[in-house]
């Protein structure tokens, strides 16, 4: 009786630590920030008036939405067929393809953006090739325009679109399609009437994630775009940099947040993917919207792809070529950076003038580099310990909570990774300011932990969803205590989820640059900060060597995951919030 009561009370208590950290570091500050934006306690809309009073701000706001919408649409157009082809592939090939998609997803966005500069630049790879072969006389303007911004953004976001899609498509019962065909539906009809609607949850969460993350972009547009390709985050960041007027910055941040929230609520707030039923009502309207912005050509094209599974060699070939092209697009920049890091020249160039290890020597021989790396590793491990414990507890608590409470709390705990990063950064800054932890290692650890908890929560929740609670009951019935049951039954079964969560928590911390640059103060130099600094000041290939280490890291991580028993689950459970497969 007593254990039962404890059991009944436990769930919510388990989310306590996570909620406490989130509230103190992020939750309360964001409310304060909101009040500040209205000049509380006097309450005036002055800051918002000032924001909308500047025509430049309004134009940049619309431009931000426009760029995000277009980038999301491109991601969907490329991502949907890619995911379809991945799912249609043999089991082994599918595994390999998922890993290949994961690699760029896990690579630092900074590094990738930087690789695109080398590829698209006036003296870059493409232009050099064309000029050398006499195809053009002067370089084509491939960089510093909107097109380059899309190329860079889509490259970073595509995995985030493909993975939820793959996850959703894997859950679709193939026999439904066969049934449709057997009843005389043409392949296109079967696809369009059966498969596509069933894949909508994946489309929805993919688009949502991509769109919201795009809203907060600022490094890629600044580095690849032209004069006019500014995004709101760029403006907010420069406001923070020049004169820190909290009210003004808060107002701009909440305008951006409002856009994100409007979109989130339009498409359905259920990011946690915990219950499928709640997703259904909004599906219809979304379906219509989906049809609206997927062009007719894409429809026909996807339909043809479906036929690829059936008869005819030619369509199959097209499918393979398409997949190869997407993989090339995803992986080529990484390969390029690795090659450049072994360059013998003093400048970034491709192909490199010779082979040398000097840039690795320069990395390991320069205290400002290895000290930064060491600091990032320390912070990363502290974040892993903190967020894995707190996040796992929270996942347990939520797993046993009422469904409605569960989806509300999951939503709340995911805000640090679903809100535009610049907003999170400014709120965290305010939170740490109150705690007196700005510019300290503890402060950075806390700032990273709030995001890392989200990753741990999602991944552990996913493995808990597949976990059969009857196993625990069985153990208890055989007189195992609650602790013993947890250690001997529950923990071993959800270990892959916990390890996965820990790994993503580490990567989240190791890669974070925007929030860290705001809360890091003067003397805290993490590796991504040092890289960002160096990209602006240095032009030697040390940066490529560092980037290579950054690319190798995810590969090591994937191996860890593989060894940790993700073999079977990798395709099904994803790090990002995706609907339950």
């Amino acid at each position, binding site marked *: 009786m007593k254990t039962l009561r404890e059991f009944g009370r436990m769930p919510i208590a388990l989310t306590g630590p996570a909620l406490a950290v989130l509230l103190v570091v992020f939750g309360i500050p964001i409310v304060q920030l909101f009040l500040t934006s209205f000049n509380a306690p006097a309450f005036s809309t002055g800051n918002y008036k000032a924001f909308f009073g500047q*025509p430049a701000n309004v134009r940049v706001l619309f431009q931000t939405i426009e760029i995000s919408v277009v980038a999301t649409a491109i991601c969907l157009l490329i991502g949907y067929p890619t995911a379809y082809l991945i799912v249609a592939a043999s089991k082994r090939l599918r595994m390999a393809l998922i890993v290949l998609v994961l690699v760029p997803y896990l690579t630092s966005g900074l590094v990738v953006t930087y690789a695109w500069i080398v590829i698209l630049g006036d003296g870059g790879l493409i232009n050099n090739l064309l000029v050398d072969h006499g195809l053009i006389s002067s370089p084509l303007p491939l960089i510093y325009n909107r097109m380059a911004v899309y190329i860079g953004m889509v490259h970073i976001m595509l995995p985030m679109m493909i993975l939820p899609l793959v996850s959703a498509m894997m859950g679709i019962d193939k026999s439904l399609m066969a049934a449709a065909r057997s009843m005389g539906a043409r392949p296109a009809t079967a696809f369009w009437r059966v498969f596509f609607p069933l894949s909508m949850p994946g489309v929805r969460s993919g688009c949502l994630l991509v769109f919201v993350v795009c809203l907060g972009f600022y490094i890629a547009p600044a580095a690849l775009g032209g004069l006019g390709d500014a995004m709101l985050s760029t403006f907010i960041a420069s406001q923070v940099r020049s004169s820190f007027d909290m009210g003004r910055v808060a107002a701009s941040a909440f305008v951006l947040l409002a856009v994100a929230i409007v979109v989130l609520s339009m498409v359905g707030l259920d990011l946690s993917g915990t219950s499928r039923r709640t997703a259904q009502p909004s599906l219809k309207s979304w379906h219509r919207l989906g049809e609206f912005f997927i062009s007719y050509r894409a429809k026909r094209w996807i339909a043809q792809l479906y036929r690829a599974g059936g008869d005819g060699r030619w369509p199959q070939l097209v499918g393979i070529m398409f997949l190869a092209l997407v993989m090339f697009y995803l992986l080529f920049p990484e390969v390029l950076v690795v090659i450049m890091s072994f360059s013998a020249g003093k400048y970034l160039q491709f192909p490199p003038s010779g082979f040398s290890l000097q840039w690795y020597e320069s990395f390991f021989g320069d205290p400002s580099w290895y000290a930064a790396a060491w600091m990032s590793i320390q912070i990363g491990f502290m974040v892993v310990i903190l967020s894995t414990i707190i996040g796992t507890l929270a996942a347990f608590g939520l797993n046993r909570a009422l469904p409605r409470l569960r989806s509300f709390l999951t939503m709340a705990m995911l805000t640090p990774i679903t809100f535009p990063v610049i907003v999170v950064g400014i709120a965290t800054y305010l939170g740490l300011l109150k705690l007196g932890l700005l510019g300290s290692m503890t402060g950075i650890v806390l700032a990273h932990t709030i995001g890392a908890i989200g990753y741990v929560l999602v991944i552990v929740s996913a493995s808990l969803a597949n976990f059969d609670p009857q196993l625990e009951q069985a153990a208890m019935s055989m007189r195992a205590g609650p602790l013993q049951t947890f250690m001997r039954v529950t923990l071993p079964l959800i270990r892959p989820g916990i390890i996965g969560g820990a790994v993503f928590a580490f990567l989240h911390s190791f890669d974070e640059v925007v929030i860290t640059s705001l809360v890091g103060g003067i003397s805290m130099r993490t590796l991504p900060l040092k890289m960002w600094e160096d990209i602006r000041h240095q032009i030697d290939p040390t940066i490529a060597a560092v980037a290579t280490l950054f690319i190798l890291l995810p590969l090591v991580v994937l191996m860890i995951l593989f060894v940790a028993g993700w073999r079977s689950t990798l395709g099904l459970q994803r790090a990002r919030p995706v609907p339950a497969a």
Partner: protein
Amino acid sequence: MVSINRRRFIHGASAIAAGAMSYQPRRAAAQSAGEVIAMLNGGDYAKACMEAYVRPFEAETGIKVTPITDEFSMAKFELEVSNNNVSVDVVPIGPGLTLQASRKGYLEEIDYSIYKRDELDAMLDFAKSPHSVGSIVYALCMVYNIEKFPANKPRPATWAEFWDVVKYPGVRTLPTGEYGEYGPWEEALLADGLPADALYPLDIDRAFASLDKIKPHIRKWFATGSEIQQMLHDKVVDLAESYDGRAVALIDQGAQVEINRNQQKMTWESWAIPKDSPNPENAQRFIEFITRADRQAAFVQLMPYGPTNRNAFKLLPEAVARKFASHPDYSASTITMDSKWYSEVGSDGKTNNDKIIQRWNEWILQ
């Protein structure tokens, strides 16, 4: 006014008193190896600082220098000062920010009593401000690719000619205006025919009208030194406005570019001590040490920026000395940037810098 003056006086007096009293302890501190935390900018700049400043200073005084290889950020600095949580003793800071920071009382006064007479006399006037000591002099100047503009063909000599895209065709770059102060405003006005001595106060409308004309011909409005260096190296642009140091570095490596010092826009950077820094005395000593002629001469040979201490030129071969913006030969054709104007606050509470940034943000979207 009176009260301000009195406060200043008291500040000054106490600084001198503190300097005098701390003479003995300072020597003791040298033996027991005190510390100074110095921010040294990033990249090669920091490396040159380590070589020319940090190691000799440690050898002479026994004070340990903890370097921070980053550039100064006003927002972070403001935050640390306002939270009484200053973590750095010496910062590199531009003239505009020096004015802002000292106006807000964020900077320690420089104790000029510990400087040698002849060193102090040799220092350029603008380098000796109450709250900062000049570290380097540099300029934004015109640079062209000499394959595109060889010596036997006409080359653009003035900003008016830089604007003349018909007579001097070629791909161009100018610095971005998003930070206000270091944007191409003076150049735009000179190109529009304004004489150099009538630049300030800047006529913002006229500057933007002039920029309208050159806008379609600018390949990229560069934001960082590494960008302009890479662009000139890759021959992406034929005609540029560049930091002189970046161009000199390229020339030293054999790049096909040349600098035109006519109408160069000169400015400088300084060392300053944040209020309530952890080791203010060591910071005073460090700055005094690294602004000596011999140290600056050592530094500028590693990093091609001009010295603020004119005596440094005596220690440099003429070929090296000519690389620097502060070389006496260039002074007649040089415009000195007026940071004071940029940091002036108007009736609406905004600085000229803020206004120009806002205007720029609108202009780029047109």
